[in-house]
């Protein structure tokens, strides 16, 4: 059946900001869908609030709306664009929920929009656990015994029949949010209460526990002719009980006989048919009792998911791309397999390698939260590794994680909590694989470890063998290792760095020895068919075998190093820059080679670059690709810290680094030399010092004065960064810091309290500088730039100040010798401009600036690095009037980490961002808030409680809220200030003052808006209780006065009804909103 001609305009809904449980995999899938629908001649309309996505690049859709993914905004888009159809299955849970709301409220019917890919009934049957369980019963498939609870007493009744432990799953939440496992009645009550609160339907499923069972996933595709295929089977290393997003997973399934595998395959196809998924991809999860093989269906997602992105990367079968084609009427046999090009897509990939995915967590950012892994997803990113064998892939995955480890232990960084060693094995946690490996090193048996962890004995045996190989070489001198031993070590997945540790040598020596012994890696193709047919798409992984398939070309080529796993501080923005670099260099006629290990990204789509190497971003792995490909240059400044960290060692090894020289990068990071540069240029910067001891720190503090910004010298995303207001606090910090890492001194800067922060992204070609955007932050200095909202153009800075900022930026770029991108952070206080930091590389804000101004900065930078002059590029005047305001706002994950404080500070905690565009700043800010929270309070009660230094500034905000019709509620101190200013205010008790207090009011739903600025650093303070209660109950929660001002204006803008939608294509580079 050919494509449908009765539809011509298709609306796609993206997944909005990156949050835990919904990351850039939906940019990958959405970008693929946009591309393929466009190629097929459809007009594509896109709504997605996330500016850091490739899919929102103006050339991906005909009409791109960077607007909140909410029914009301999407309705506005529908009203304006009048699409024929809506494809809801590629934008994650957010996109799907939005489509469901539009269908249910009759919007789609009213505008004659057809849901393609999945009908409303199908979505509901797949998503509603009750309907789903009934459907499973109809086709004779088993599900865990369960019941629905709408109250704690319902839940207790259900547990009386199914017993503990019980699994609690709130209906209609994303990534298992609000779910958990209860082993006793106390836990049951607390998890059920939270789950009911979080579920839009006020409903939780209380389910028989299948904890400890084997967990599997099947990725299925079906077309409208009822042709259905399994794209990939996935077996979880972690047994049931850990959210699949938090589990180590392996493809293909490893421990199923054909009978069991086929039973699961039959069940998956039967489920697709019964649920009624007519076209597209779905994911089905199963559990198997390891004792007797009882198979139960856990759930299915009738849409493209995180697992389908993984399955696509793991097999080379592009699920999202094909799902889009199926949705418009093609059948699987009409679509050619992208990789073989000669065989059709109506087949099941066979893979002759092993894929391991390992999640990446960021618990260090959220002290106070429970770090045990459970049914609620907590990871912020993931890596995928491909090896011929499981152990090879596992080793690779652990060195891909960017946690400073070079594999699964034996890297000099093993540190075990001896007292709780058994607990670390028994309770799933981030470090459990290290404990397992250590258990084998200590002679524990596979049976023992498997019994404690519920990890399948086959996986345990694989780990035990890795450890056995370690033992064979441990303590030996490197030069005594022979070819055979070296080869076995490499085939078992040990890195050169681990071998160096085991043999008491250094990594470079191991590499040299390996070359002497001629133990060299080989590259194999990911070809969907286990070599049965020739592959025409160069997608490779490294292994140690006989034959190498890489066949490098002799074209002019450039290698781009990706950003590795998403984590807080380094997310999709850097992948966006890498992808743009690949596009730009390809346009210039270069062959592009991508190296990355993050399966969620567009950069690891084999379509993005000419050649893709799915490999860790370590010196060893990058060098191996380099030596095979011999590119004329390597780009290290687009993927954030990950590739940047390698720049020096790569250059030392003779790798030509393109763009800004590594020594210039170092110059910007070397505070002493950088201060000299600033002095030379006559640019102000906050007084600073470096201390290795407590005494040194006290001395510096005396010299430059409090408050001080204090941080370790080597950080990403402001990790470990605090503001010290007192000597007592500084001493405490220094004692801890010097203990944790005695080799790294602590940096102390004068903190410019109340200053306005400004970010600038620019490109320099060595002769001239192009300033992409000047961004004024909403929150004042002290909040990590990644966590604060910002606006293009500046909304409050004077023209003279902006001119000075531009001047400084140019001077710095030329002085440092930047060739490519540069980000500068400024602080403006009392009309003075200070430079806080310069990073001569791609920054987090590059995608935002590019979207806001219409100038693709990363592409401009890549062209510069390839030798094109800025003057040759015909760029628009950087000082032109944009005629619109674009606000970027950060998205915080606090809801995922109960117990952690939601206050913002110098340490970055956000996972993603959104953009709001409008003709005025308050409207743009309102949109950014709506894009995150999906709602802003339009009235009710505002609770205001601020610290003393904010008491004066909060008065106009409170007055404004009062005028907007809010009832104001305050604790005693703030109430006194407000009353003095003549604002009607009601008082409420603080937590420690008795009951009922403010937290009771929050929990009872009596408060719609919280403004609470922190009083100090004491944890478990009143503020902490207020903020955590607000997070838990989804109440808009503001922790700075500046944000409170902006939100108040935003509420006013929203109430005025002037929030309209605008397409990027209408904005152009010259302005107009």
């Amino acid at each position, binding site marked *: 059946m050919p494509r449908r001609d009765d539809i011509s305009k298709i609306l796609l809904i993206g997944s909005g900001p990156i949050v835990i449980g919904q990351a850039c995999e939906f940019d990958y899938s959405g970008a693929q869908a946009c591309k393929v629908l466009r190629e097929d001649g459809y007009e594509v309309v896109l709504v997605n609030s996330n500016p850091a996505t490739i899919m929102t690049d103006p050339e991906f859709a005909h009409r791109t709306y960077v607007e909140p993914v909410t029914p009301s905004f999407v309705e506005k888009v529908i009203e304006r664009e009048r699409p024929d159809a809506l494809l809801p299955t590629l934008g994650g849970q957010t996109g799907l929920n939005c489509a469901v709301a539009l269908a249910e409220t009759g919007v789609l019917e009213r505008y004659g929009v057809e849901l393609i890919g999945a009908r409303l009934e199908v979505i509901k049957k797949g998503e509603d656990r009750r309907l789903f369980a009934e459907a499973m019963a109809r086709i004779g498939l088993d599900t865990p015994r369960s019941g629905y609870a709408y109250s704690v007493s319902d839940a207790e009744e259900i547990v009386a029949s199914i017993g503990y432990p019980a699994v609690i799953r709130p209906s209609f939440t994303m990534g298992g949010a609000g779910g958990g496992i209860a082993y006793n009645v106390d836990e049951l009550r607390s998890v059920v209460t939270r789950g009911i609160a979080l579920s839009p339907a006020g409903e939780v499923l209380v389910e028989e526990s299948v904890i400890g069972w084997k967990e599997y996933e099947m990725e299925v595709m079906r077309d409208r002719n009822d042709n259905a295929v399994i794209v990939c089977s996935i077996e979880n290393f972690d047994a049931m009980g850990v959210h699949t997003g938090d589990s180590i997973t392996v493809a293909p399934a490893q421990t199923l006989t054909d*009978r069991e595998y086929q039973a699961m395959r039959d069940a998956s196809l039967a489920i697709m048919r019964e649920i009624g998924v007519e076209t597209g991809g779905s994911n089905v999860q199963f559990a198997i009792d390891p004792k007797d093989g009882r198979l139960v269906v856990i759930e299915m997602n009738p849409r493209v998911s995180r697992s389908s992105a993984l399955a696509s990367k793991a097999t080379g079968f592009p699920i999202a791309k094909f799902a889009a084609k199926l949705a418009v009427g093609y059948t699987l046999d009409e679509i050619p397999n992208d990789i073989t090009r000669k065989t059709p897509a109506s087949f099941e990939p*066979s893979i002759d390698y092993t894929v391991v995915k390992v999640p990446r967590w960021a618990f260090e950012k959220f002290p106070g939260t429970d770090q045990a892994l459970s049914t609620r997803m907590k990871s912020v990113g993931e890596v995928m590794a491909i090896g011929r064998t499981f152990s090879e892939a596992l080793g690779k995955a652990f060195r891909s994680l960017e946690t400073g480890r070079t594999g699964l232990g034996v890297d000099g960084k093993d540190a075990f909590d001896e007292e709780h060693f058994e607990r670390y094995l028994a309770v799933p946690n981030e470090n459990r694989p290290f404990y397992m490996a250590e258990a084998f090193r200590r002679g524990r048996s596979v049976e023992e470890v498997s019994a404690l962890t519920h990890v399948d004995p086959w996986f345990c045996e694989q780990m035990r063998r890795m450890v056995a190989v370690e033992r064979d070489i441990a303590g030996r001198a490197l030069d005594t290792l022979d070819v055979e031993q070296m080869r*076995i070590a490499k085939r078992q997945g040990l890195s050169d760095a681990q071998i160096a540790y085991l043999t008491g040598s250094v990594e470079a020596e191991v590499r040299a020895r390996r070359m002497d012994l001629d133990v060299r890696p080989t590259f194999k193709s990911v070809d969907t068919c286990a070599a049965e047919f020739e592959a025409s798409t160069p997608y490779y992984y490294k292994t140690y075998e*006989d034959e190498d398939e890489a066949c490098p070309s002799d074209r002019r080529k450039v290698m781009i190093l990706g950003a590795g796993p998403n984590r807080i501080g380094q997310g999709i923005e850097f992948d966006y820059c890498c992808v743009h670099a690949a596009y730009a260099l390809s346009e210039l006629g270069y062959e592009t080679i991508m190296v990355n290990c993050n399966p969620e990204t567009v950069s690891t789509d084999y379509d993005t670059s000419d050649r893709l190497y799915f490999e860790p971003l370590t010196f060893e792995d990058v060098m191996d690709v380099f030596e095979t490909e011999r590119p004329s240059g390597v780009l290290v400044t687009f993927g954030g810290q990950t590739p940047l960290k390698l720049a020096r060692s790569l250059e030392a090894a003779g790798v030509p680094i393109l763009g800004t020289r590594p020594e210039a990068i170092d110059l910007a990071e070397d505070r002493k030399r950088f201060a000299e540069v600033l002095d030379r240029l006559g640019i102000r910067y906050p007084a600073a010092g470096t201390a290795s001891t407590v005494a040194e720190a006290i001395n510096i503090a005396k010299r430059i004065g409090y408050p001080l910004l204090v941080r370790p010298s080597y950080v990403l995303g402001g990790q470990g960064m605090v503001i010290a207001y007192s000597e007592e606090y500084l001493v405490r910090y220094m004692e801890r810091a010097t203990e944790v890492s005695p080799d790294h001194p602590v940096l102390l800067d004068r903190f410019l309290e109340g200053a306005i922060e400004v970010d600038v992204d620019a490109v320099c070609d060595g002769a001239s500088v192009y300033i992409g955007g000047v961004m004024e932050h909403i929150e004042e200095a002290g909040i990590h730039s990644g966590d604060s909202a910002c606006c293009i153009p500046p909304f409050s800075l004077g023209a003279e100040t902006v001119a000075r900022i531009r001047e400084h930026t140019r001077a710095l770029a030329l002085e440092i010798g930047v060739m490519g991108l540069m980000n500068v952070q400024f602080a403006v206080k009392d009309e003075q401009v200070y430079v806080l930091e310069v990073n001569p590389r791609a920054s987090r804000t590059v995608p935002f600036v590019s979207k806001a101004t219409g100038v693709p900065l990363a592409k401009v930078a890549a062209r510069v690095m390839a030798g094109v002059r800025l003057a040759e590029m015909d760029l628009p005047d950087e000082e032109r009037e944009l005629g619109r305001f674009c606000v970027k706002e950060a998205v915080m994950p606090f809801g995922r980490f109960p117990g952690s404080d939601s206050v913002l500070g110098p340490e970055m905690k956000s996972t993603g961002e959104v953009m709001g565009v409008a003709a005025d700043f308050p409207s743009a800010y309102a949109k950014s808030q709506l894009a995150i929270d999906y709602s802003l309070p339009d009235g009710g009660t505002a609770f205001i409680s601020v610290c003393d230094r904010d008491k004066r500034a909060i008065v106009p905000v409170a007055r404004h809220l009062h005028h907007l019709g809010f009832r104001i509620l305050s604790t005693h101190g703030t109430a006194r200030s407000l009353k003095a200013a003549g604002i009607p205010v009601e008082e409420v008790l603080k937590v420690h003052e008795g009951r009922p207090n403010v937290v009771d009011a929050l929990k009872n739903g009596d408060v719609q808006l919280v403004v609470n600025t922190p009083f100090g650093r004491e944890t478990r303070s009143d503020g902490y209780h207020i903020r955590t209660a607000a997070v838990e109950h989804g109440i808009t929660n503001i922790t700075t006065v500046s944000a409170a001002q902006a939100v108040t204006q935003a509420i006013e803008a929203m109430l005025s009804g002037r929030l309209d939608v605008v397409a990027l294509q209408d904005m152009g580079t010259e302005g107009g909103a």
Partner: protein
Amino acid sequence: MSDSARAFLALEDGTFFEGVSCGAPGEVFGEAVFNTSMTGYQEVFTDPSYAGQIVVMTSPHIGNYGVNAADMESSGVFASGFVMRECSPVASNWRAEESLREFFARNRVVAAEGIDTRRLTRHIREAGAMRAVLSTVDADPASLVEKARASLGLVGRDLVREVAVTERFTWGSEVPPGCELPVDTGVLPAESRFRVVAFDSGIKWNILRRLAEASCEVIVVPPATTADEALALAPDGVFFANGPGDPAAVPYLYRTLGDLLGKRPLFGICLGHQMLSLALGGETYKLKYGHHGGNQPVKNLLTGRVEITSQNHGFCVDFASIGELILEESGGWALDPGDLAGWVRVGVPPVVRSERYGRVRLTHVNLNDMTVEGLEALDQRAFSVQYHPEAAPGPHDAAYLFGSFVGLMHGDGETLEAGAGTPARR
């Protein structure tokens, strides 16, 4: 690992591989073929169709779930040798009875691991399936290559007699001759509705299980059984099984099939399909490297639907060789009957005229290489498929064909259009 015995694989074209023995010591010969199934190694090496072949598994981890009696596809191992990237020392599955290594040792199977199976597969893909030797006793490449060259190939060789039973037996009520294991017979019908005589040429047990589940009493007979002897058993239908080697080398079998055509409803699988085609006057030819795996897309031209199929064959039927196209029966499309891509494109099953047996319809086509996967003798109540609807290992998409056979015995009409893609139980 380093103290393990070495194993060596040499191909007739001089290609040489070194690995580690993970089975019994010895030296075996066969045609090297690769199988891309990701599960079901036990079903593969116990499939008698692999007689005379050294099987290379493309999936790198083999043996993970061990071996169990219920997954046997015959009484023992028929592949002459087995080659893997990694053979698991442990067996992890609740049904596992022993590890694969133990099984190989006990059954004296020569097997090797540690081989770059992808290189081997790519080599076979490019150079074609060829004679090979797998040895744990001779480490000399030159000598091994010489031995491979001197070994027997598959073409023209009758391997059927070596793997088939010599005595007839009834599935479920009698133990297959020469069988020591407890046999998993599958679900036997309380009362069988049809009696099927199945000519053994290396029949896989799952075919028997599937026929039994479809309420057939199956009498398995030796391949040399004559048509009269078969008819004397009063069958409702006759079945021709899978089997090893060159179809052209077993003329007695397709002659018997020809004698039975039209007398009873007839169903053939794999070699049985080739037997039907040869009996109809068609020809077979050897594929470069065959189809061995569980992911092959086959289009049913009668329904337009795609089945994911399990396949294991090195020879193939030339549809055009059966006879001239019957234009009016072929939707009026004047395409070459051998232009399978063309028939798939127009979505019409072509019909040719067999000189002796009348109309023959092409029913199934492999979408990967547009080769013949199934046909139907419209005037003889006979049909056959090249692939394995009984799966084991592989997907169950084509299980409906057993229902089609039952339908044919029952006297139903368009049987091959029945529920394609609807998986049967298990």
